[in-house]
């Protein structure tokens, strides 16, 4: 049909117009009429996004901005907020409790890493080789995770009873070991908190590792076996390298999580004995809500901001390291 058609000016014009229309979006549509916008679905897009925008705007993005503002202000919710520059930060840094809180938080994170990091991996590797009732292993490992943290802490507080007939002290007695002070001793308090926290949280890491182990390429094991690799060599040269991303990610997540530890020190010991379990989050809480003389929201915001900055730097360094390692 079109073969015999002459190139009329009309056709030329149409071609030009089509081209212009095709180029138009790239140039810029100019102002779209509201009616066109609605007809093209702009309104329904906005309606669907509205709950997300409202909720995140009000309870995520705005508070982030407000946090930065509050860190630079002196606020007590009654008088007008006054801008005070960086004085909140310097007050926090010169607070004698600040280095104690940082050191305790680092100790908690470090101990949690030592206790809590290898255990889930060993458990997951063993569970993944179970041939029957694998689900039972996973359920048992995950069970503590569904116990509400408040219940877990209060239950373990009973276990840590320092009397000689406390639960743990009774069990130690079976092994011929004398009663311990647990959370009442400044030296044992922090390890006790870490023990409970590891019990409460290890299960989800086990499940993450189990999911990752399923993803390990099975042919690599067979290839390694053909090359004469034994169990340990396969574990070291196939399983672990295949899991390194997950391993690093769980480590970052654990560090970020433990840096915010709050419920354990708050409910077990209130930061005691002798500030031995005062953590950064507990200090933030005390600045904002624990001071009967009046809340220092500014200092709480300043310390929160320092924590965010520290964690952000931390995860960026880690992400870079992960990338460098995985491209090697």
């Amino acid at each position, binding site marked *: 049909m079109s073969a015999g058609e002459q190139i009329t000016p009309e056709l030329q014009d149409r071609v030009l117009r089509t081209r212009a229309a095709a180029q138009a979006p790239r140039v810029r549509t100019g102002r779209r009429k509201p009616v066109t916008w609605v007809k093209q679905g702009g309104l329904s897009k906005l309606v669907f996004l509205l709950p997300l925008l409202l909720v995140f705007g*009000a309870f995520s993005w705005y508070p982030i901005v407000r946090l930065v503002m509050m860190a630079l202000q002196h606020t007590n919710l009654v008088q007008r907020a006054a801008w005070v520059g960086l004085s909140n930060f310097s007050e926090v840094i010169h607070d004698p409790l600040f280095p104690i809180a940082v050191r305790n938080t680092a100790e908690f994170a470090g101990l949690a890493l030592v206790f809590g990091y290898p255990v889930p991996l060993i458990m997951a590797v063993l569970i993944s*080789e179970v041939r*029957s009732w694998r689900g039972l292993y996973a359920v048992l490992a995950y*069970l503590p995770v569904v116990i509400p943290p408040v219940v877990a802490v209060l239950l373990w507080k009973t276990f840590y009873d320092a009397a000689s007939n406390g639960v743990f002290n009774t069990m130690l007695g079976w092994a011929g070991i004398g009663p311990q002070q647990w959370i009442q001793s400044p030296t044992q308090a922090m390890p006790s908190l870490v023990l409970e926290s590891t019990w409460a949280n290890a299960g989800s890491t086990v499940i993450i590792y189990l*999911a990752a182990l399923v993803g390990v390429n099975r042919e690599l094991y067979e290839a390694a076996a053909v090359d004469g690799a034994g169990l340990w060599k396969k574990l070291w040269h196939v399983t672990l390298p295949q899991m390194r991303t997950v391993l690093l990610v769980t480590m970052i997540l654990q560090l970020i999580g433990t840096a*915010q530890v709050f419920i354990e020190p708050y409910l077990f010991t209130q930061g005691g004995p002798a500030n031995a379990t005062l953590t950064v989050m507990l200090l933030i809480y005390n600045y904002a809500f624990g001071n009967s003389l009046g809340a220092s929201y500014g200092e709480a915001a300043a310390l929160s901001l320092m*924590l965010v900055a520290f964690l952000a730097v931390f995860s960026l360094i880690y992400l870079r390291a992960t990338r460098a390692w995985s491209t090697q």
Partner: protein
Amino acid sequence: MSALPGRRKQHPRNDSGPQGLVLANDWRRPSVRWGLGTAHTVLLLLLAVIGLGPVLWLAKSAITPTLDTITTPMALFPHGLDWSNLSTAWSNVDVGLYMRNTVVIAIGSWAFQMVVATTGAYALSALRPKYGNVIMAMLLTTLFVPAVVLLVPLYVEVVHPPFIHTSFVNNYLAVWLPESASAFNVVLMKRFFDNLPREILEAARIDGCGSFRLFYAIVLPMSRPILGVVSIFALLASWKDYLWPLLVLGNPNLQPLSVRLPEIEQFTPLGVFLAALALTCVVPIVGFLMFQRSFLRGTGLSGALKG
């Protein structure tokens, strides 16, 4: 050999499914079989003692007289059972009321989270507005800001909200709304929507299906697995939540169980207190046992997401 029938029963699955770290011919070696078998038995016992032990102890102590629990915590019912702990906790200590509050808070949080996550993820995944990338980037940024550090500005916002001059303290909206701002939910949901077969959505569009109908008649029914996973984690997180409800719900008659328990500890006998702890655990544990598959898959998913 006693191990033989068990192995034969497992055999077809091992042949059809992929093999793991320990290959079939490794399993034939006695040292591997015995070594791993022992390791597995020890692991199962350890898991039972460590994972289940504290829960069983709590269940036992909830129905043991207080005096017995204090003097001989590891003995099994030396002087019989005391079921009255449970009823005292439920009615005299008002665990029943606090449980009702916990349920109301959990269901409200769940409803708000689902609305925000499904509509938002649907808009970002299927409707794709031009500014979608900007919103997505802003959502991902919030993943880097831990919720607890926003405690102070959020609290101030709830006490003195801008534009609205009423405090939201002691109002369940103060718990429901901030919890629904979960970037994690939106990202998880969007990933799932992204992987729905495009052809079905396109076909529906061509047949004249509008955005709203596409959402509730096609996308939502196809997304039941992810809806289940997100629901379970929303409900569990709400049941576990402590610090935020403690801050914004000052009225004891409105507080959930987790906030009340430390108070209950102060003024009740140990047996009744432990009964209250046990009652708090019943719902999450039963829920977990009923929906364990979704729980475990969801946890694996969250690892993959963060990775």
